[in-house]
C-alpha cells in the first residue's frame, strides 16, 4: 500500500503551499478591495464584473495559464519556477484572489457608503473614515482568509499542472489522491479525501463561529 510518511508529506506540502498562497491572497485582496471598493471611477463596474466571473475559473485553466507563463519557453521561464512549490503557490493565488477580493468589495459596498456619509457630516478626514472602515468588523477578514484557504487547499488541477506532482516536492494531498486512485489504491484516495473534508468542515464551523460572535 502506501506508507504513512508519504501521506504526512502530502499533507504538509498542502498546508505549506495553501497557507502561503492564502497569505498573499489575503493581503493583496484586502489592498485592492479597498482601493476599488471605496472609490468611484469609470471602469469600476467592469472590473468588479471581471473579478466576479474569475471566481469560477476552472482550476485547470488557471494552472494552464501559469504553466504557459513559467514554462521554459514562456516569458518567465528563466525563473525556474516550473515544478516547484512556488509555482503551486502562484497558481492557487490566482484561483483564490478573485473570490477574496470580490468578498471584501461586497462588504465595502454594503457598509462603506453609509459609514462615509455619516462620518463626513462629522467632518472626519478620508484617513479617519478609511481607518474606521478597516477596523470596524474584524471577523470579515478571518472569514475571507478561511474561505480562501479552503478553496486553495482543496483545488485540484492548478497546482497539479504547474507542480508536476513530484514525489517529496510538489505532491500535495489532491495530487496524491489523483495518483493513488490512478494506481487503483482507492482507499488512500478515500482517506485523504476524508481528511480534506474534515478540514473543510473545521473551516466552515470556524467561519460561522466568528460570524456569530461579532
Amino acid at each position, binding site marked *: 500500500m502506501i506508507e504513512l510518511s508519504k501521506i504526512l508529506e502530502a499533507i504538509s506540502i498542502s498546508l505549506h503551499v495553501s497557507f502561503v498562497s492564502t497569505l498573499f491572497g489575503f493581503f493583496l485582496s484586502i489592498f485592492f478591495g479597498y482601493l476599488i471598493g471605496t472609490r468611484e471611477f469609470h471602469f469600476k463596474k467592469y472590473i468588479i464584473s471581471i473579478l466576479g466571473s474569475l471566481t469560477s475559473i476552472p482550476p485547470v485553466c488557471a494552472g494552464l495559464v501559469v504553466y504557459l507563463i513559467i514554462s521554459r519557453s514562456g516569458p518567465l521561464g528563466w525563473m525556474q519556477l516550473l515544478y516547484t512549490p512556488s509555482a503551486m503557490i502562484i497558481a492557487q493565488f490566482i484561483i483564490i484572489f478573485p473570490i477574496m477580493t470580490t468578498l471584501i468589495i461586497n462588504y465595502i459596498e454594503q457598509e462603506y457608503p*453609509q*459609514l462615509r*456619509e*455619516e*462620518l*463626513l*457630516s*462629522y*467632518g*472626519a478626514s478620508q484617513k*479617519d473614515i478609511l481607518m*474606521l472602515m478597516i477596523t*470596524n*468588523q*474584524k*471577523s470579515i477578514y478571518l472569514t475571507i482568509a478561511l474561505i480562501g484557504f479552503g478553496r486553495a487547499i482543496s483545488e485540484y488541477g492548478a497546482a497539479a499542472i504547474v507542480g508536476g506532482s513530484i514525489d517529496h516536492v510538489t505532491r500535495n494531498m489532491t495530487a496524491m489522491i489523483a495518483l493513488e486512485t490512478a494506481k487503483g489504491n482507492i482507499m488512500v484516495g478515500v482517506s485523504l479525501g476524508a481528511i480534506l473534508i474534515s478540514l473543510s468542515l473545521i473551516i466552515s464551523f470556524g467561519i460561522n463561529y466568528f460570524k456569530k460572535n*461579532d
Partner: protein
Amino acid sequence: MIKLKNVDYQIDQKIILQSINLNIEQGRTTVIMGKNGSGKSTLLKLLNHIIQPTSGLIQSYLKNPIPMLFQKPLILKNTVSYNYQILQKIKKFKINTSWFDQFKLSALEDQKMNSLSGGEKQKLFLARLMSFDQSTLFLDEPNQSLDLESEKLLAKLLLLEKKNKTIILTLHDFEMAKKIGDYFIYLENGKILLQENKQQFFDHFSS
C-alpha cells in the same frame, strides 16, 4: 436661510427629486413628510450638503455638512459607550450628556451593540447626535423604533430644544409633527405637493 432653486437629484438614471423650490427659515422647525420612497431622506441630505444636486442651486447659511441623524445611523461593532464616544473623538467637541441621561442609557453602557433592541439603539443614536451643542439639527425619522413612552420623551425634549434652534426633520406620523412642527413640506414622488404653515397644512388633511 437655506434656499433651494429648481433642484433636481437623480442617481443612475433614476429621478429621486424634481423641481424642488423651497426656503428653510432659521429659528423654526420644518417638518418634511411623505410616503416611503418619496425622497424625504434625500432632501434632508441635500440640505445638509451630504450630497450634491444634479441640477439647480442650493444657497445655505451652512458652509459645510454638520452632524445629523441618519435614517440608518452608523453602528460600530463594539459597546454602547464606544459608539457614543467615537464620533466625539473625531469631532473633538465636548460632550453634552443630557440626552444620554434622559434616556437612561448608562445602564446599557457596556453592552454590545448587537444585543440592543431597535428602540434602545435609536435612543443611543439620538443621544449621540445631541451630545454636540448645535444650533441647527437635521433629523431623519428620529422617532423610528421608539416605544410610546420614549416617543413622548423625545417630543418633550425636542420642544425644549426648538426654542432657539433651527430644526429640520422628516416624520411619518402626523401627531408628532403637529406637536413640534412650524412649517410643513409634503413630498410625493420626488416633487413638493404642499408647503405650508401648520394651520393651512393640517386644514388640507382634515377636509
